[in-house]
């Protein structure tokens, strides 16, 4: 927000107001965090027992491998360089959109990551929407009917949902909808969505894709729900709520316009954390459903010691999480006037 200010001589002086500055600081902060993450990831890789080269050559008998060939291979992959040099190569490549080459598949990693990412997002985005809508909605509902049977039921269900590991939920869905009803395909990667028309896509979504989606959402909805309920209940006890109601303002109005924005603040933090979980928890869910997403890609990369892919997927997932936190920070400051002004 630029406001025109006049200095002593009547000349206008552009002023960048506090909020823009705040925004800039957050952006820079997030970038720094990502950089730190990338360094840490690289650092961890260095401790990997066994050589990447060994993995690559696994199929071939060790005797048959000439030490010189190994050295050549190492040089090829850039593994003989000191750490910071490897790091620099990686980072500068990233800046140009080059994620490096997969060790195992011998193709650029970038495109694979992003196509898999797209598949994962098909699951993740609706899951996040579910999480926010159901989590906040049910949380508010539970808070408003606190201590009633409805509240008790909601609380019980969310308690169980939190405790259920993702693979359990997924397995349950699979049991019912794959085995018994044959709705979910045995192998998702056999299905090519681009071939569907709109109606078929929607059907496919609601009969098949929705299950991994719900699996991811289940636990996160419960977390958001509990936090929303708790902070709503606490907020409703505060003096200003009573004062507003005693001014004759309708209850619904007070809740939506006065209470909610304060009560949601802690919920935003929880939502951000859970977005990270969604981006990551996709791994287990994708594993259970054999879904070709970024999670499975990372798993495979780990098992095959495909370093560029590992790093790439991990970085992308972390970036998503950092982005979610950034958005949460901004939202938080918009909703809380006290933070914005300081």
């Amino acid at each position, binding site marked *: 927000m630029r406001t025109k200010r006049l200095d002593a001589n009547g000349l206008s002086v552009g002023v960048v107001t506090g909020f823009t500055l705040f925004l800039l600081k957050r952006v820079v902060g997030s970038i720094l965090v990502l950089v730190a993450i990338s360094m840490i990831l690289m650092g961890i890789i260095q401790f990997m027992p066994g050589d990447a080269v060994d993995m690559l050559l696994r199929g071939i008998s060790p005797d048959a491998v000439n030490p010189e060939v190994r050295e050549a291979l190492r040089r090829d992959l850039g593994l003989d360089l000191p750490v910071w040099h490897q790091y620099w190569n990686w980072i500068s490549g990233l800046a140009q959109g080059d994620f490096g080459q997969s060790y195992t598949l011998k193709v650029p990693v970038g495109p694979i990551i992003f196509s898999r990412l797209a598949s994962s997002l098909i699951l993740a985005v609706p899951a996040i929407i579910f999480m926010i809508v159901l989590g906040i909605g049910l949380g508010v509902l539970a808070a408003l009917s606190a201590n009633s049977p409805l509240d008790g039921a909601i609380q019980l269900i969310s308690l169980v949902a939190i405790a259920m590991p993702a693979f359990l939920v997924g397995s349950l869905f699979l049991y019912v909808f794959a085995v018994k009803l044959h709705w979910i395909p045995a192998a998702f990667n056999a299905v090519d969505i681009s071939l569907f028309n709109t109606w078929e896509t929607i059907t496919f979504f609601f009969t098949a894709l929705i299950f991994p989606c719900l699996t991811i959402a289940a636990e996160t909805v419960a977390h958001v729900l509990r936090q929303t309920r708790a902070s709503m209940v606490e907020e409703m006890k505060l003096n200003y709520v009573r004062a*507003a109601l005693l*001014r*004759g*303002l309708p209850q619904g109005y007070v809740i939506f316009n006065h209470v909610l924005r304060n009560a949601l603040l802690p919920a935003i933090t929880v939502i951000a954390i859970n977005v990270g979980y969604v981006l990551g928890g996709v791994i287990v869910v994708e594993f259970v459903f054999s879904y070709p997403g970024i999670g499975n890609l990372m798993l495979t990369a780990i098992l095959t010691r495909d370093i560029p892919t590992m790093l790439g997927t991990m970085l992308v997932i972390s970036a998503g999480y950092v982005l979610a936190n950034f958005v949460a920070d901004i939202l938080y400051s918009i909703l809380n006037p006290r933070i914005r002004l300081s």
Partner: protein
Amino acid sequence: MTLPILAFNEFTFEFETKPPTAPVLRKLTLSIGPGETLAVVGESGSGKSTMAYNAMRDLGVTGRLINGNIEVSGIDLVDLTPGELRKLRGGQVAMVPQDPMTSLSPSVRVGRQLEEVLFFHSSLKRGPAMDEAVLAALQMVELHETERILRSYPHELSGGQQQRVLIALAMISKPDLLILDEPTTGLDVTTEARILELIGRIQKEYGTAVLLITHNLGIVRQFSQRVIVLYAGDIVESGPVKEILENPAHPYTKGLLNCIPQIDSHLIEMDLPTIAGGLPDRNAMPSGCLFAPRCPLVSDQCHAGIPELKQVAEAHHVRCIFAEEQRVSNQRLSSVSSTPVPVAADAVEDDVLLAVEGLAVRYETEFGVVHAVDGVDFQCRRGEVLGIVGESGCGKSSLARSIAGLLVPSSGRIIFDQQDITRDGLQRPADVRRRIQMVFQNPEHSLNPQHTIEKCLLRPIKLFSQIAPENYRDRIIELLESVKLNSYHLNRYPHELSGGERQRVAIARALAAEPDLVICDEPVSSLDVSVQAGILNLLQESQRTDRVAFIFISHDLNVVRHISNRIVVMYRGRICEAGTTAELLSPPYHPYTEALLGATPIVQSGILKRKVNLPYSTSKAAGGESEGCLFADRCPHKVGLICESELPPDRSLHTGGHLFCHLSNDQLGAMEPIFTRTP
């Protein structure tokens, strides 16, 4: 006969608890006619707030109506539909709640909060008509910086401004009845005076009936016509204000009035009368008169049954069998027997224990440098009680913490018993640490919730006294008894004690070290009047028997005046006036002292108080690097530009006293006293 605006008819109300407890309000019957003002006075736990909320049918979480009803303009509240009830609240009946800071929605702008009420109570829609109405509301409460205030969030306003916004919110739909729940707690005394005046004016102009809920008998006089004294949910006395204050008849009312220090109490050394004990435990209510367990007049008849409300004079009703005699008796009822002793002039030694020279405490904040304490000089003598009076932002807390060693001042000197301890902070010599102790304001936070009382008192004894370990317990019990507690409290935790009891433990802890100086930072501000008196007596006794000096910091001038030998008045980090108590109470006054005295509520009958008109304070921050007098922008006696450009000189005619003002000695001498006795 016109219908009363508000009528309670035999209203009995309880909170459902496990195990069941006695009702909070018992057969309460009162009424307020149109345009009338009624004050309800009671201590915490008396049920007065519950009463106020019930007038708008707010039962609280576990509240339950047992009997009786409440009628607003003749209509039983129970008969209202939810929609009608909503229209009533904030429309016909409006409340100004307690604690302005937490009663405004923190994330909604003030302007919007005003518009909302109009939106839901009138037919106005957003537009010029509504804007006009909102502006008019702000004008009504003397908030003139309308643009800024409308756009502000509540936390950006000062306490006084927030309170006025709440009044505006209540008055904006011109209610028939205005309920004020402790409207001045948490506010500065001068702000309090102006707000009360404001309410009085609004009441006259709009003919609104007013129900004032308070524990402060002093403000009752200001604009109420009638007063009701509530004890444990029952009316014990009711009548016209003048009559009740001059001729109280119920022992409780008398006790309450006596607990408040009289205007000349500092001239006679005597313990303040207290009311022994506390409100009856709801789990074990006495049979018979509820006040009997605490009453100095109690007789067997009192336990037989609850007395009826008897009329003892015109419109004056009392619930006590001794009412008639008490009304005309001047007997000072007290659980503390004492004979008055005139204060000896040389009771205080000349030996200077603590000298503060040019003390300054500065903070860096995002708004610039804040001078919390800005060049303060004073002395405290051995065995003396030095009172420091000032409102919020005057720097008294920073001053206290500097002397205590909790912060190191930015400049100046603190000399204790000829030792310069300024820079030492908490590293001061061990014996200095022992000899300077502190009692804090909030008893809830000054005792560790995880320590028993015994453990709490053990540590200072262990560290500071020479007593052998086997005698520790005896010493602890001795200390407890000196603050009117006993061995029962040894194994209790703080949350099992009342506020007054906790504060006594804090004092015992301070005295355990056998100090020479105890700094008390607002020690009685969070306590009820009857409990307050007991604490003040304790401090004075300590001064008498052990020659302990006290620095007593408070915003309540009446309390400070009662207990102090000398007083220092602070404003925004600087001293305005200093001197003995007698000097301070009589003219010449510093204009700020004059305003403080004029704003202090007086309960005593037979005393006239001159009114002083003081504008609201304009800024929240403490004093800056101003070249002149910091009080200049509010001073009713402002001389001229000199007040803003030059530091005021010291006009005091007394040794050891100060009076910093640009007014000439002649002008100061011409000031009229604030307090005069009626002939």
